[in-house]
């Protein structure tokens, strides 16, 4: 019984340590963004201080982060709206059609996720310059959607495979066409999968860096690219960058708090077969 108690204590201790290590840099970032520069970067650190919001107003108003946030929002929304429906259609078809073609397509798509982004990105950059789509959200959306398609197809296909086909077959026998079956039967049943797919796509496109970096200039830059420009400058701007970084992290924090279940489901999906 003493073993039991010791084990419980050890587990709680391990939990606390892991959580602390995981969150420490972020907590430090938050503290830094609320301190005056002198307090923030002097060692030993001040744990008691009067917080100030001035860096946040500097970031959002003076530096115009609102514009970058808008750019990010456009890119994320566009990518989700483009990638998820297309992936859903393809995933449904790949889950219901028995043929060698499906495996060929799936394997090629999977192989694509292994490629470094520069290979795909550079020709898209040329394309963007040639068609004057450089520095627009459209080309970023197209590039990102194409990048996430294979992953989403694999994810959604897994969800569609779980749905029993008996109901669909009844409907088909009764005279429904395949589109009707997809729209009215399969899709509603795959809702958790669709939510997961939308959530993952939102987060991936929110965090995307290389494609937006090479495909946008100052006009259409999303948050990730904008903040990267600040990090490199000297220490006087680090408080501003910290406020910007915390601002960028907040939507992700909200997503984690609100949609944890779906996130963890999406992450563990390809791995663990229940």
């Amino acid at each position: 019984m003493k073993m039991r108690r010791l084990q419980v204590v050890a587990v709680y201790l391990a939990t606390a340590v892991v959580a602390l290590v995981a969150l420490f840099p972020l907590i430090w970032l938050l503290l830094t963004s609320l301190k005056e520069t002198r307090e923030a970067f002097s060692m030993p650190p001040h744990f008691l201080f009067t917080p100030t919001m001035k860096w946040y107003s500097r970031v959002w108003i003076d530096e115009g982060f609102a514009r970058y946030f808008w750019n990010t929002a456009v890119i994320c929304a566009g990518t989700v709206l483009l990638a998820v429906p297309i992936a859903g259609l393809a995933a449904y078809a790949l889950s219901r059609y028995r043929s060698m073609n499906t495996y060929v397509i799936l394997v090629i798509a999977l192989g694509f996720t292994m490629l470094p982004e520069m290979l795909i990105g550079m020709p898209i950059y040329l394309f963007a310059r040639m068609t004057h789509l450089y520095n627009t959200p459209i080309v970023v959306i197209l590039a990102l959607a194409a990048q996430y398609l294979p992953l989403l197809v694999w994810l959604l296909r897994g969800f569609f495979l779980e749905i029993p086909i008996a109901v669909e077959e009844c409907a088909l026998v009764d005279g429904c066409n395949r589109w009707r079956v997809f729209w009215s039967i399969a899709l509603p049943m795959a809702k958790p999968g669709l939510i997961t797919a939308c959530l993952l796509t939102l987060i991936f496109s929110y965090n995307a860096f290389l494609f937006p970096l090479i495909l946008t200039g100052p006009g259409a830059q999303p948050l990730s690219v904008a903040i990267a420009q600040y990090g490199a400058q000297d220490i006087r701007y680090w408080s501003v960058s910290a406020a910007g970084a915390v601002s960028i992290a907040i939507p992700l924090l909200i997503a984690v708090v609100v949609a944890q279940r779906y996130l963890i489901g999406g992450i563990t999906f390809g791995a663990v077969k229940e």
Partner: protein
Amino acid sequence: MRSRDFWAFMTPFLFLFLVFGIGPLVVCIIISFTHFSLSDYATSGIGFAGFANYLAVLASPRFWRAMSFTLFYVCTTVPLELCLGFAVALLLNARIKLRGVFSGALLLPYVLTPVVAAMAFSWLFRDQWGYVSYLLGQIGIHLDWFNNPWPARFLFVIFAVWKFTPFVILILFAGLKSLPREPLEAASIDGASWSQRVFFIIIPLLRHLFIFVILTRMIDAFKLFDEVFVMTGGGPGSATQTIVYYDYVQTFRYMDLGRGTAVGVLSVLALMIIGTPLLYYVYRGQLRRN
């Protein structure tokens, strides 16, 4: 499903995938065989170059330095993440579920934008202003993480372990929960110790999950870019350039598209060279059986 319906459903996917996936890849390979400089293609034109780009890249010591750092990074972070993640997952196995605040805490580093996370992380290690540097100084370790090549390289390893171990923990924890209880109970009844149970039952049963984690992390680690851009810019010198960063520099700083694409193709080949023996070693058991 009728063939006609299948292709109707697949068309948008195939279109997007071919135009913005396969197409760029083919264009990239083609360009790697040409002389194509973005800065002066109007004057010197685009000409066929055979393997000249590949030879130039393979002869460049910067390329090999980038490749060796990338391999170093992959070969240190993946085992570290795996072992640490597995250890933590085992330790936490006593809990029924990872839920609420704790799983949220685990998710945040993994989900956070890489550039943001890298920036925040790197500030902790700055010489005069970083808290971790200060703590290390208190116990007598004085390291300039950013102006020496090896500390800078290890900085990325530490960062990756911090960021990606939660991913491993979450997956392996779910895997541990899905294991059948009978073999473990039978083994403990038969007198097997905890470590015997782990090494002879749990690990073999989780073999496929380990492989999934290793392959996923290996491929992602190979593509390291965002953090390099923000933390060190490939420095000091070019000590922390990864292969993707080197490609980026060739393409967008030196404007040499022929070289950049050659680097990209070579990096894919390298990934295949490394990955295929691993896959073969892992799946030869199954291949033989089939």
